[in-house]
């Protein structure tokens, strides 16, 4: 359709305003991390690096970061294995309940987090705890893995659909045993899908707070939980703000990584 120059301009302005709406709050956090005023009086009167150094010295935040990384890596590892298995089963086989299974995988992320959280919490307390495994980091990993499976599954399934089985058949015809075919043909084909899915799974786990609230054992504090606990304490505000600023800066990394991997679409399916 032919848009008048006026309409083009109006849309350009709208797009700019929309991007401003999206980025202004993030920029504010970055600026405030240098704000000399403890209560973030606005506009800032003086700038300081003090909060950055006190955040660096804050052992609570550092421990929480480490816990989050551990939980993210654990959940991602499980999600990679389970998601790949389901994707292969769904794509390469016909079986009873296949459609139901692919719906079931989406369920943990489609239902409100609080529902998944309470369900896993009460199941853990009534089934796993009597076996002697209390809630701790492990229960967090189990909870996160449950909703991370879908990201790996989606990525691997899409890749398997696109590549088909011709190359694997050729490999078998040329005399490769199944193990060799998997190592030299199938795995290289799905490697970047695994990376993209794993990246999404890690990011999802790293950011999660609701399921974590319900599955974390005593003393297990992930970074989101730490931020939430300190959000309402006025004298912790500057340190929370620096941690927030760091997370904003770090959020550029996965996009950059996905870009290098497979173009802009790779990071598109956040869920």
């Amino acid at each position, binding site marked *: *359709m*032919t848009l008048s120059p006026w309409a*083009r301009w109006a*849309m*350009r302005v*709208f*797009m700019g305003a*929309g991007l401003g*709406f*999206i980025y202004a*709050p*993030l920029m*504010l*956090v970055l600026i405030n991390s240098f704000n000399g005023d403890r209560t*973030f009086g*606005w506009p800032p009167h003086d700038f300081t690096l003090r909060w950055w150094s006190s955040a660096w010295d804050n052992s609570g935040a550092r421990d929480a970061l480490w816990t989050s990384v551990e939980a993210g890596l654990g959940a991602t590892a499980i999600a990679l294995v*389970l998601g790949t298995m*389901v994707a292969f*089963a769904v794509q390469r*086989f016909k*079986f009873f309940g296949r459609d139901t*299974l692919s719906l*079931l995988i989406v*369920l943990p992320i*489609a*239902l*409100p987090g*609080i529902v*998944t959280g*309470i*369900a896993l919490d*009460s199941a853990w307390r*009534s089934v796993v705890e009597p076996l002697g495994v209390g809630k701790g980091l492990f229960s967090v990993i189990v909870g996160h*893995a*449950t909703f991370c499976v879908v990201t790996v599954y989606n990525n691997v399934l899409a890749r398997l659909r696109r590549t088909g089985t011709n190359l694997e058949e050729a490999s078998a015809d040329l005399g490769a*045993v*199944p193990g060799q075919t998997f190592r030299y043909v199938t795995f290289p084909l799905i490697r970047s899908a695994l990376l993209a899915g794993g990246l999404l799974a890690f990011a999802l786990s*790293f*950011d999660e*707070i*609701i399921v974590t609230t*319900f599955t974390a054992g005593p003393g297990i504090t992930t970074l*989101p939980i730490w931020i*939430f606990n300190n*959000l309402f304490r006025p004298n912790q505000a500057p340190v*929370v703000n620096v941690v*927030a600023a760091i*997370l*904003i800066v770090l*959020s*550029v*990394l*996965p*996009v950059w990584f996905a*870009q290098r991997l497979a173009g*802009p679409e790779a*990071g*598109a399916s*956040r*869920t």
Partner: protein
Amino acid sequence: MSLGSFLHRHPRVRLTALLSAPVLWLVVAYLGALAVLLVSAFWSVNGFTGDLVKVVSLDNFRTLFAEAVYRNVTLRSVGVAAAVTAICVVLAVPMAFFMAKVASPRSRHWLVIAILTPLWASYLVKAYAWRVLLANGGPIDWVLGGPGHGPGYGLFAVILVLSYLWLPYMILPIYAGLERLPDSMLEASADLGARAWRTFRAIVLPILIPSIFAGSIFTFSLSLGDYITVQIVGGKTQMIGNVVYANIGAANNLPFAAALATVPVVIMVIYLIAVRRSGALEEL
């Protein structure tokens, strides 16, 4: 014969091996946990000891429907979710249209990245940013003329912040839908004499409906179950999630919390069934 070739010759064994762990996890563990939660919604708690009373009754649901508090909370949550969805559609359609059909291919690439990047910034960080923005004497107050002049924390802030959080989830499916819409269709419409607005209404919008519904699944369900943002910027506002949370923590009434939690699940299932006919689920 190696294990690999054994598996190769027995596809059923291979399938079982592939499916056993995931099915055990997702069907037995996760669905089982959900089922137990659903059943416990019919239980109650002994008022003195705090122990679970595993006797089936409809009392929790009766309270849920009878008391005005819970009706109001449900209506408020649905209202917030609907308002957030509407705001996201109004903002996302022009932005996605600009990205897909007006911007040059080169800037299109960068615009997609600009929309994607904030998705990776933490949910909590974004809600926190708005807590600072909306604070008494904060930047928004400052722009509007001094402390107390801005909207402050409350229901309006909840709608605003949730719209902010989920806007990219609406832009991306609409953008994807528009990218698939061939330019030739728009040109044909123009050649037949339709003005821009007519083309938009008669061609673009009908094609976008499944994408808009797909985006709305995110904006609606994520808003409906939220309680963290509500705690951060909502002031005294309560949504379903907050009441569920309060019943698990302070009130220690898991059965009632479970009964409450079925409300957003039922609403979401109805919503999913309603939008499925438009083909929205294939757009996810």
